[in-house]
């Protein structure tokens, strides 16, 4: 086993009184794609929100790259190289495409590489370059998703977390997003993906965890999870 970049131990998180994640442990290995699957309300988004610092942790610990970041604010996590492409994209509607990308590189770790980062983002998504002066809010859903991913990459992350990157997108665009994730892995980037398209996600992932009602119920190589009869019945309808 190669070294774990992210190590989560017995993590619990809640919205008010409602415990949405209970004692969940997992690890993400460097250079691999790790997937988190489960039905709606299983706690997947809650998990990513607590990893990025948007939701405070109740119990447990998060170690990233050997450092404890459990109680660090969001900006310090980005500074350490942990970036989130959030559910619903959360791009800035009143910023142009280029301003959205620039603000993605606001952390000190990325600020000096702004020009390089822009070049890389435009090479990856030529459409964004065509629309660089257009306001974020006027882009189509697929373009907004590309912008959200590109903005995440602007932070020069070591681990990029993607929350439902193909939700609500046309099949062709979803294809492009899956291709792009494989491509990013080939550059050596580590990915943690939460996706509703369980079948395709498990096909590109190396490892996977299955969440149910806020608890981890299964973990292993993505191929094994994909072959599991229970998973096939519950999530793939086969």
């Amino acid at each position, binding site marked *: 086993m190669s070294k774990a970049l992210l190590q989560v131990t017995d993590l619990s998180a809640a919205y008010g009184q409602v415990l949405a994640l209970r004692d969940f442990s997992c690890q993400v290995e460097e250079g691999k794609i790790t997937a988190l699957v489960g039905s709606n309300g299983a706690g997947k988004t809650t998990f990513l929100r607590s990893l990025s610092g*948007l939701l405070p942790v109740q119990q447990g610990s998060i170690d990233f790259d050997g450092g404890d970041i459990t109680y660090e*604010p*969001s*900006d310090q996590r980005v*500074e350490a190289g942990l*970036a989130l492409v*959030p559910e619903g994209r959360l791009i800035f*509607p009143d*910023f142009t495409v280029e301003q959205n990308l620039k603000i993605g590189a606001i952390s000190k770790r990325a600020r000096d590489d702004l020009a390089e980062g822009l070049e890389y983002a435009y090479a990856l998504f030529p459409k964004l370059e065509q629309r660089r002066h257009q306001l974020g809010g006027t882009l189509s859903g697929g373009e907004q998703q590309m912008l959200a991913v590109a903005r995440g990459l602007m932070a020069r992350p070591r681990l990029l977390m993607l929350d439902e990157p193909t939700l609500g997108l046309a099949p062709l665009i979803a294809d492009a997003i899956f291709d792009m994730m494989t491509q990013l892995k080939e550059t050596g980037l580590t990915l943690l993906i939460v996706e509703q398209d369980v079948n395709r996600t498990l096909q590109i992932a190396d490892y996977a965890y299955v969440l149910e009602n806020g608890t981890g119920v299964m973990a292993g190589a993505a191929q094994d999870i994909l072959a599991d009869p229970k998973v096939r019945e519950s999530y793939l309808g086969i």
Partner: protein
Amino acid sequence: MDILLSPQLLAAALITGVLYALISLGLNLIYGTMRLLNVAHGDLVMIGAYIAFIVFSLFNVGPLVSMFGAAVICGGLGWFAYKSIFQNLLSNSQILARLEENSLLLFFGISVVVQNLVILFFTADRQGYEYLSAIVEIGDVRLTGARLAVLIVGSVISIAAVLYLRFSLFGLAMNALIQNRDASAVVGINVDRVQMFSLIIGFGITGLAGALISVLEPITPVMGFPYTMSAFVVIILGGLGNLWGGFLAGLLLGMLEIFGVAITGPEWRSVLVYGIFIGILIFRPQGLLGRGKIAR
């Protein structure tokens, strides 16, 4: 209607407009980044005016110098308010959801306390001082030196502030926070720091405006309230959280007020300002330059 073409009136409108732009910029930063309804905002104008008055009485130093002191002191009050009250409230997501409504009551209380403290120390009497009262003539326009200075200094500072917030990295971060709080945290903006500086700059710039206003009108403990109302009208006119829109709306409200009063009479001032306020809320609630709802 010759009166509408009078350059004299135009100068008066610009002075009022620039001051509105400056004061509402402060309110807009605070509302935009934290959704705090600072109904004590005009009291910062009053504090700035008293600072300028005290400095002039004690040291014979004019407002063009003491305005920087007023900015620093009011900015310090902003820092103190952030550290003592808002930092904790804003970091709790459940309190945050209800903070906008509750902040209205909180600031109303602060306003009452501050006004009464000022009455206690300085009495409720009107204060004032003589400063650059000689008349300056520029073409057809006749202004006191003080009013001319306010026009120039106010314009320079408000334009500089808007340009800084539009083109600097800090301004970009502030604009991002105005648009979406979660997204700002996700991209790595130090939200806590941006909030703190919004309050410091917002309070400071308003205190500075107050020092300038001290040469234009009598200084009293209740002089701030009309500025609170005007500033709210301006940021709603310009679109909440839209800094550039607010700047233009400040100038526009100054024009509407001065020209409106010149046509009707001073007793109509409140009717005009509140009439515009209600009119916008009914017909264009997103503001003249607003594009729509601000995402939270």
